[in-house]
């Protein structure tokens, strides 16, 4: 048993790419070396190194017996000799076996298991350069190896044995590098057991977890929690040391959103908050140093922040000189998309759409229209040009400062939401409407000019836009029929349906067949869809439901075989007394009962109660009666049954367990 250590030393890797890269490395390694056992594969990383360790690898993979199939005896002696020669043996050493086509030669061959050291040396280069990164570069010259950043050293040790290989001119070895500034200037000799401690002596904490703890411990309870920022900083540093700085109280006159954005996005600082949640005039920066004894780093960061805040204050003042309402025409100069014209054009379209939706939802049309008109005007402000991630937010803040009223201001502020599956939807109905109209317009226009996402390619983030629309409609329970607003762009409907299904499965956790079943019945409002899928999900575990679903599937197949797509209602006089009549009576009763309630769960319980009659019918009655009239009538009965209740869900989509029809 031996332990393995791999360290890929590279120039600074972008923080956000590190975890996916480690996961990929882990998987590729585990797949390639499965034959060597290995009780634990762990990965770690700093900006300058990707590290993989595997414990208890066996030195030699077990031999495996392989069977090579040879020619049939009927092919003659020549073929047999040829096969034997290819296998480095003679015909008398071949075995025989019989399969469907006759007797044939086979050769049992023992494939020697590889030595771990040999296998590692052979396969690692390919594994390493195959690690997936979103964007790679070459550095040794055209046609050279590609990686995220230049590889500068590699450590590969199997216990104390060096695993030799080479990538892009870099030979693997047993030396690593310390912290760029604080560590030894010369390469550091490491062994498999002292790897982490040698690095720690040279101001590199290899363990991601330890770096994270080190930062967290120093943050203090008044620091605004921010997991994403924390992760970024963990992967931007090899020896993280948080330091505090402060800024002048006068900057607190600026909105919190703007100050936080400057600190977080531009400077990667944590905000500090007071007990009441308001911002304190302080920040925490995480340095890649051992400390700041002279306060120089703190002063430097304070100065940079001051300049940034001054910029923001300046932008705020300059921007107020021209109201948002006076900026609408300036949107002519802001490109929405090369093929789709300017944001002025977009604004006009969004207004029309937002007004239609507002009308359908009985919302305050004046507010919606004004918010839609001004929603994009902040794109012309200096503040948004500088802090693009504050689009919408700045518009909302300015609208409020310029007396547009809270309703309009909030709608503008929120209209980019939800920006992800986890993000909140706009807080007000007017905000929801503007958000939907904005996103639907983007979708409609992109689809219109054929900019449709394919596979993993979605440069205009149309899936996210569609997901946003769906999320709002579901979560705000808006009684809006989406189809009315995309009818003129046919390709968009299936795209939206995909997002609806994704939402029900991923965000709400319904089983795929439950979702398929309700989608098969079509939809008007998403709220109605949500009620139906919830009903299916609730009633599904009851005794009658799945067997009935199986029967519906059978009915569907029968109708399909009979090629019956439309039918008149069954003629009662042609129904044969007994199970057939009974089914018909039960059907009429259930139909009345389901029509009497608007609660889908109750409807479903009623429908499920048909099961005994349906079972009895299939048990006793042959649909294919020799008399065509009776046969037609039976099919008509089944057809009524299926269509009547399929408006709630396509029950045949439900995947049933056990014996089905």
């Amino acid at each position, binding site marked *: 048993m031996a332990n393995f250590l791999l360290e890929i030393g590279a*120039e*600074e890797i*972008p*923080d*956000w790419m590190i975890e996916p890269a480690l996961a990929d490395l882990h998987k590729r390694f585990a797949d390639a070396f499965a034959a060597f056992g290995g009780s634990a594969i762990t990965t770690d990383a700093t*900006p300058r190194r990707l590290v993989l360790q595997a414990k208890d690898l066996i030195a030699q993979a077990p031999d495996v017996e392989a069977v090579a199939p040879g020619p049939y005896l009927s092919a003659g002696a020549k073929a047999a000799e040829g096969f034997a020669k290819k296998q480095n043996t003679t015909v008398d050493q071949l075995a025989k076996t019989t399969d469907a086509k006759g007797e044939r030669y086979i050769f049992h061959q023992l494939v020697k298991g590889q030595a771990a050291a040999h296998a590692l040396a052979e396969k690692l280069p390919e594994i390493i350069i195959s690690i997936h990164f979103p*964007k790679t*570069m*070459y*550095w*040794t*010259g*055209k046609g*050279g190896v590609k990686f995220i*950043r*230049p590889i*500068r050293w590699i450590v590969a040790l199997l216990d104390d044995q060096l695993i030799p290989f080479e990538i892009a001119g870099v030979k693997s070895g047993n030396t690593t590098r310390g912290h*760029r*500034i*604080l560590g030894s200037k010369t390469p550091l000799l490491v062994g498999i057991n002292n790897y982490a401690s040698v690095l720690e002596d040279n101001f590199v904490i290899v363990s991601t977890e330890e770096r994270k703890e080190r930062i967290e411990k120093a943050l203090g309870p008044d620091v605004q929690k921010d997991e994403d920022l924390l992760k970024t900083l963990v992967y*931007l*540093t090899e020896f993280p040391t948080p330091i505090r700085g402060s800024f002048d109280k006068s900057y607190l006159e600026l909105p919190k959103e703007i100050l936080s954005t400057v600190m977080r996005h531009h*400077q990667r*600082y944590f905000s500090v908050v007071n007990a009441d949640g308001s911002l304190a005039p302080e920040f925490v*920066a995480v*340095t*890649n*140093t051992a400390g*700041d004894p*002279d306060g*120089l*780093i703190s*002063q*430097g*960061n304070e*100065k*940079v*922040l*001051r*300049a940034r805040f*001054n*910029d923001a204050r*300046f932008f705020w003042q300059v921007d107020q000189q021209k109201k948002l309402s006076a900026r609408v025409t300036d949107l*002519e*100069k*802001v*490109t929405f998309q*090369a093929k789709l*014209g*300017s944001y002025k054009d977009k604004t006009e379209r969004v207004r029309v759409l937002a007004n239609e939706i507002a009308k359908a939802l009985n919302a305050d049309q004046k507010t919606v229209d004004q918010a839609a008109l001004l929603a994009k005007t902040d794109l012309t402000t200096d503040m948004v040009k500088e802090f693009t991630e504050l689009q919408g937010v700045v518009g909302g803040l300015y609208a409020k400062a310029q007396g547009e009223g809270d309703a309009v201001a909030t709608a503008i502020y929120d209209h980019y939401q939800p920006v992800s599956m986890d993000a909140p939807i706009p807080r007000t109905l007017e905000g929801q409407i503007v958000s939907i109209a904005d996103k639907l317009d983007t979708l409609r226009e992109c689809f219109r000019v054929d900019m449709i996402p394919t596979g993993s390619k979605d440069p205009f983030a149309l899936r996210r836009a569609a997901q946003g629309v769906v999320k709002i409609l579901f979560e705000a329970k808006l009684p809006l029929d989406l189809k009315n607003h995309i009818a003129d762009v046919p390709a968009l409907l299936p795209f939206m349906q995909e997002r609806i299904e994704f939402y029900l499965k991923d965000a709400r956790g319904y089983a795929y067949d439950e979702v398929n079943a309700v989608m098969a019945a079509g939809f008007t409002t998403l709220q109605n869809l949500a009620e139906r899928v919830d009903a299916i999900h609730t009633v599904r575990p009851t005794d009658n439901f799945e067997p009935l679903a199986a029967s519906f599937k059978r009915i569907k197949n029968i109708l399909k075989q009979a090629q019956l797509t439309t039918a008149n209602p069954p003629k009662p006089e042609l129904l044969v007394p007994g199970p057939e009549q009974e089914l018909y009576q039960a059907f009429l009763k259930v139909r009345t009962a389901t029509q009497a309630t608007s609660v889908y769960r109750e409807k479903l319980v009623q429908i499920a109660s048909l099961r005994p009659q349906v079972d009895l019918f299939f048990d006793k009655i042959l649909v294919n009666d020799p008399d065509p009239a009776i046969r037609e009538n039976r099919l008509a009965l089944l057809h009524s049954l299926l269509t009547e209740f399929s408006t709630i869900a396509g029950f045949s989509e439900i995947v049933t367990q056990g014996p089905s029809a």
Partner: protein
Amino acid sequence: MDSFQDTIFKLKHYWADRGAIIQEPYDLEVGAGTMAPETFLRVLGPKPYKVAYVQPSRRPADGRYGENPNRLYKHQQLQVILKPTPDDVLEQYLGSLEAIGIDLKKHDIKFEEDNWEAPTLGAWGIGWQVMLDGLEITQFTYFQQCGGIDLDLVPAEITYGLERIVAFLQNVNSVYDIEWAPGFKYSDVRLADEQQFSVYNFEMADVDMLWEEFKLHEKECQRLLDLFRAKKTGFERFPVLPAYDQALKCSNLFNLLDSRGAISVTERVGVIGRVRKLAVGVADAWAKQQAVA
């Protein structure tokens, strides 16, 4: 305390000691050191090259009438090209910071992802912005493509923002307070420049004249490129470099028109495409010319 010019001298010396040619700024209006032929053309082809130069870089839209302490219409870049990139390039770069008096052990240095792309040049690269105590002081790029051509040798481009670095070293809050030379501040040397060009670029430049000029330079560049393409022999002395000057003129005129607000949405993409076509054409001609030279 080192003056602005002292710091420049030290950086030039540092890179000269490492084998770089010290060039003077290119004598045409450019938006960045990258556009000077010493970068844009020299990175093409298989010949190693090392050069450093200060390039005054004009960005008309960034002008602030001399009133913003950090923003300038024209700033000074110190541009270093190392082709091919030495393995210890980042160590060499950090050494240059020490050479201008930054005690790295007392400061916080980070390399944060920042890839560079210039659509008008058909150029892009992979790299970082270098942060010193939260201040971006350098853009570092491994060039991958230039003028639409995959590069044979991968050069490293190091672009120092001189005003920022020196403001940091001199601990002043405004670039205008930088001491350029003993007794002379940055404002003494450059403030009038900023004020007048901001007025011209934003308010007074004659749009019709700029368009006219743009078309003339574009036509001249294209004429030369067409002649080059038609040639079967005698590439060596063909004026590819003058053709590039014409392309640079177009690029600057585009920036001026843009800051005058004279380019509409629908025109914009088209105009960028026209400049790019010239730059790509010149790069292609230069590469061919180098191959026979």
